[in-house]
């Protein structure tokens, strides 16, 4: 039957569309709907079918999904911010001012900052939800541990980003935070046991050789610190968190998808 096809439909059945979206066409049948998920690299994160409570917000709170979404928002807004922000003590602060004053859609910084705060909260709440539904129980114990690491990495990402505006808020928060590292037992210059690591007059754990130094790139918070935090914030930690995220998602699927009553 020579049916008159709409433009959209023609497009959806054309060669270009079908070559990009495997199968093509608007999924109508159950099989097609399953194929949409199976055939897409992104949707493939999900299984094809789910227990019904898994689509209920009341059950999931969608906090895991939002955390991931926030991670994407932060990645994109972060990349955009990098085009204007220079991690040097001369320019860091003024570049932030310019983001507010003259850069088109400098609101990107607000999105990034509030997104970061929001992500901390969503990750916490995700953990809360997972605990309350007992979803860490076997076989998901390891994935819970990965989740804890992701929580830690989220906090570290947020913490490293905190320094970048190079204002009073930033450096004092990091000063307080990084001075704790100085108190790490044995590898912090003012940690218990550090004084024992010495030969003769040579102390091995000092202000310029301890863990805090490695973090700050100097004995004091300064130019090197800004650069180190910047690199950790933009490349180092995202790289690590992405690896753990991949494992986390993969294990969700492999451990049987969303937890269900046995």
């Amino acid at each position, binding site marked *: 039957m020579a049916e008159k096809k709409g433009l959209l439909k023609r497009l959806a059945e054309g060669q270009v569309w079908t070559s990009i979206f495997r199968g093509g066409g608007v999924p109508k049948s159950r099989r097609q709907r399953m194929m949409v998920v199976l055939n897409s690299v992104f949707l493939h994160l999900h*299984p*094809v*079918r789910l227990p019904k409570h898994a689509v209920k917000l009341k059950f999931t709170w969608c906090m895991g999904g939002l955390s991931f979404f926030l991670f994407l928002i932060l990645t994109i807004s972060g990349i955009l911010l990098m085009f204007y922000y220079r991690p040097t003590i001369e320019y860091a602060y003024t570049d932030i001012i310019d983001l507010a004053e003259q850069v088109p859609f400098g609101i990107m910084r607000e999105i990034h900052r509030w997104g970061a705060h929001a992500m901390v909260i969503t990750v916490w709440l995700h953990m809360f939800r997972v605990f309350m539904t007992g979803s860490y129980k076997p076989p998901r114990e390891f994935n819970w541990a990965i989740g804890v690491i992701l929580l830690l990495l989220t906090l570290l990402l947020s913490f490293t980003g905190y320094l970048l505006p190079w204002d009073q808020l930033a450096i*004092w928060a990091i*000063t*307080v935070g990084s*001075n*704790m590292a*100085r108190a790490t037992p044995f590898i912090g210059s003012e940690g218990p046991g550090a004084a024992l690591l010495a030969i003769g007059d040579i102390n091995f754990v000092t202000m*310029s*050789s301890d863990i805090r*130094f*490695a973090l700050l*790139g*100097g*004995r*004091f918070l*300064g*130019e*090197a610190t800004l650069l180190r935090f910047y690199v950790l914030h933009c490349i180092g930690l995202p790289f690590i968190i992405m690896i753990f995220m991949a494992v986390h998602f993969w294990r969700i699927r*492999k451990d*049987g998808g969303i937890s269900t009553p046995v």
Partner: protein
Amino acid sequence: MSELNEEKQSVTVPPASPPPAALGKTDDGSQVTRRTFFSWLSIGWIAFVAATGGFFTMMLRFFFPNVLFEPVQTFRAGFPEDYQVGEVDLRWKSKYGTWIVRNGEGIYALSTTCTHLGCTPNWLTAEQKFKCPCHGSGFRKTGINFEGPAPRPLERYRIVLSDDGQIIVDKTKKYQQEKGQWGDPEAFLKV
């Protein structure tokens, strides 16, 4: 979906590991003893771990540059006569993070870094104490802590006279009261 089940099945397919002796047998029939097998493999792994250790050592060492671009840690603080007996001198506080205090016997240089978490305390002349704004630690004029969370007294810096009679404060060398270092001759400048 049956993905999970398949997985489980595939796990159960291979039979239990063969007895170790069988490992020695290969297709070409050459006989390799178990001993050589283990030694090659273990040598391989030991070497591999060592090499990887090398990589991580390199990474660790990479974080400690060979020179620092930090402000000079030694400064000249004028002549002893510039300081009043009994006063806490604030002129080097912002530039060098040092208070210079002169008492009846001499002069000492106090670090302006709170021993709690590194904030900068303020000198309150009326109360004759250093008070840290971060967590409320209080120190006496001598630098000894007496209130708040600070675990130990403020540190003192090395202080000596130069050839031309000026005071030199060297911040790279610190003296801690709790270690009994304040008695060191260079922790205190007798005037």
